């Protein structure tokens, strides 16, 4: 029986777990929190699938391709869209409580960039209810959970470029542990938290798995593509769902005048808001005209969050908003079987780059992706493990990581890493955000290189062994620094504008030079980058 280790307990991890289990594998899910606390719980919109005669799979494929701005892989997108109806039916039979239309069929709504209403949803809680349904099914299947384990490194037999397992920090006990497996699936989510208070993401979206993957020898793809959601609350970046505009909400400037088409694609609306804020200082979402009854029924979460975080009531007041980092299109490069360049190391979900979103993700395609590719990935990993079981090779990774933790506990603490983390978030939002240009990007690169040198002078202040979240946050910061360098180099290299990557110094798309993926990897510790198919 193959042993499959899944790192990450969000939607992608749990779908893979069920699929690997079904394929006969022994499955362990390791997560740095608890599965139901994952980023997936925050997804609101829905899961795209063509279910009725009024829509077609060809249209779903065409919409996704168009949104990807030339970087979507047609056959992978076709795989995604063709498997979508079955993915939704599968979720339904697991018990996901989809909302229903007046005929009793699974209800669908139209999201930005879609030519028909095809996002199947469960109120404004699609991600929450999907995640909990999956968790319940994993308990039913008897899957083993190792909670509160923070991933340190993937264990690789370098001679054969073969994964052997992973090391982690047991957060409550403070011990470094090793888990061996025949196949490892990375399902650790995106890197939006790099933008700190300018991101809609959970504080845990720090890209740990992506950073560990490139350290292990995997290649990354398209890290410069980060989707900004147009409407997040101004002071906290808490998401205000697209459905507020879908229902007829207006975007207005300081004078109360509308200035853009509210239902254009996300990148277009987000840039219009960005430009307006630079010009006049503030932009607001106005849903007052929708009326209290409608707001209470359709947007109750939005009303509550605006009251808590902005101290205003959307029934009577304008909602101050700004665009915020929302989704990582870039990630670990994988093949059709979801396997990375390291044998036996797989990746799935937001941490992976399945080449389905390209330069811009379509709303409703992320939950779909994690279900379709999660099912595929779990099966692939289980089959791989049966065909080529890992050997019980001696490996020095555990010893290295025990030393690593001991060393950083002894760092000098002359520089406060929380302060640097805030600086990194701010310069990223301003210079590696919605609008970028070469000078700004190079300034950020320089700042990152300073921070890399300063890391040994930072470190955790808290010296406790038990449940040291200060230590965990410092390692997360290290992962952010590692990825931020790759993001900025990728953004500098891509001297064009495409999808979510907009260069004010070169505002046009250049397919001849840049109609390919930015691939990054390490060669003897040196970061390499190139454009590849």
């Amino acid at each position, binding site marked *: 029986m193959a042993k499959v280790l899944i790192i990450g307990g969000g939607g992608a991890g749990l779908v893979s777990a069920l699929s690997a289990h079904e394929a006969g594998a022994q499955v362990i899910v390791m997560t740095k*929190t*608890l599965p*139901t*606390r*994952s*980023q997936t*719980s*925050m997804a609101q919109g829905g899961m795209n699938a063509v279910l009725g005669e009024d829509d077609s799979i060809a249209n779903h494929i065409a919409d996704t391709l168009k949104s990807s701005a030339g970087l979507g892989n047609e056959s992978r997108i076709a795989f995604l869209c063709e498997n979508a109806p079955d993915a939704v*039916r599968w979720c*339904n*039979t*697991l*018990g996901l*409580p*989809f*909302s*229903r*239309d*007046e*005929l*009793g*069929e699974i209800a669908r709504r139209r999201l930005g960039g879609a030519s028909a209403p095809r996002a199947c949803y*469960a*109120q404004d*809680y699609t991600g*929450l*209810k999907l995640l*909990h*349904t999956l968790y*319940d*099914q994993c*308990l*039913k299947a008897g899957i083993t*959970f190792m*909670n*509160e384990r923070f991933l340190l490194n993937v264990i690789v037999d370098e001679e054969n470029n073969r994964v052997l397992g992973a090391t982690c920090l047991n957060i*409550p006990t403070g011990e470094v542990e090793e888990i061996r497996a025949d196949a490892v699936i990375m399902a650790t989510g995106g890197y939006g938290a790099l933008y700190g208070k300018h991101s809609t993401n*959970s*504080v*845990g979206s720090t890209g740990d798995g992506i950073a560990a993957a490139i350290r292990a020898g995997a290649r990354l793809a398209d890290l410069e593509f980060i989707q900004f959601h147009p409407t997040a609350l101004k002071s*906290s970046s*808490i*998401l205000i769902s697209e459905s507020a505009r879908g229902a007829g909400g207006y975007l207005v400037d300081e004078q109360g005048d509308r200035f853009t088409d509210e239902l254009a694609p996300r990148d277009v609306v987000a840039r219009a808001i960005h430009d307006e804020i630079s010009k006049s200082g503030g932009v607001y979402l106005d849903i007052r005209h929708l009326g209290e009854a409608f707001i209470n029924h359709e947007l109750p*979460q939005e009303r*509550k*969050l605006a009251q*808590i*975080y902005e*101290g205003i009531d959307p029934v009577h007041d304008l909602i101050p908003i700004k665009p915020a980092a929302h989704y990582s299109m870039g990630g670990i490069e994988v093949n059709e079987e979801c396997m990375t360049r390291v044998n036996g190391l797989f990746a799935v979900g937001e941490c992976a780059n399945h080449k389905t979103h390209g330069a811009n993700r379509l709303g409703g395609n992320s939950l779909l992706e994690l279900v379709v590719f999660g099912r595929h990935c779990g099966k692939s990993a289980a089959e791989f493990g049966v065909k080529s079981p890992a050997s019980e090779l001696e490996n020095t990774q555990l010893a290295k990581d025990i030393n690593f933790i001991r060393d950083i506990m002894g760092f000098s603490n002359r520089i406060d890493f*929380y*302060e640097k983390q805030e600086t990194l978030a701010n310069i990223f939002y301003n210079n590696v955000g919605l609008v970028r240009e070469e000078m700004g990007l190079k300034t950020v690169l320089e700042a990152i290189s300073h921070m890399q040198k300063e890391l040994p002078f930072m470190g*955790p*202040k*808290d010296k*406790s062994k*038990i*449940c*040291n*979240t*200060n230590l965990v946050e410092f390692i997360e910061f290290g992962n952010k620094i590692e990825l931020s360098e790759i993001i900025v180099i990728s953004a500098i290299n891509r001297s064009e504008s495409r999808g979510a990557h907009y260069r004010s110094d070169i505002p046009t798309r250049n397919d001849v030079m840049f109609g390919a993926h930015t691939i990054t990897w390490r060669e003897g510790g040196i970061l390499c980058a190139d454009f590849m198919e």
Partner: protein
Amino acid sequence: MKVLVKRSHNDEVQGYEVDFENVTLLTVLNHVKTKIDSTLTFSQGCRSGVCGSCAVRVNGREVLMCEYKPNDGDLVEPMHNASVVRDLVVESSAVEHFSRMANTWSEASREGNVSEEDMHRIETQSDCILCTACYSACPVYAVNPNFIGPFALTRVWRYVSDPRQTKSDAKIAAIQTNGIWDCTLCGECVPVCPQGIAPKQDITMLRSKSAMLGYNDPNMSFVGGLDFGAPMF
């Protein structure tokens, strides 16, 4: 404003002076951790009330730190009914343990159309974020640590009353011991739920369902005679 936090290393209350108004408790504690005292330990995630990470007790009552705005002198303590790992972080195995005990999952489900009204029946119960506020507030654990408890029983009712379910007898059987009959219906779990779920009501529904399937309340073993409605003298 001064916020008081129960610390675990010395079992004492520590006060933190912060210059904030009208912000969430989570914002305050993040300020403390990043600017004043990095040893203060708590859990957090989404900041928007859906991940269930940041439940604590403030002045004795369960709240989510990301939704609660503190007042001067508030006392913040870890949740009840779970051992403290450190400061405001408690041991978290209860979710998995009680969910497994109660079989909180779909056994078998049918496809096909379901009316909007029928799906509304499980809408609120499936809003649960597993923050375990109800579990912390439940007084039954003081006498029975094996009590399956409010969140797991609400989850059982969520699946039992799912209009698509075709099989739920095993679930009902699993909650007869240490389950629905151990609840005192005191209702402490209801006001603390950040999602407006009423586990007490769901437990009552499960009792009715159980009675219809032929199960008896073990506390009602007095058979026949004049009992004036009291369980046992």
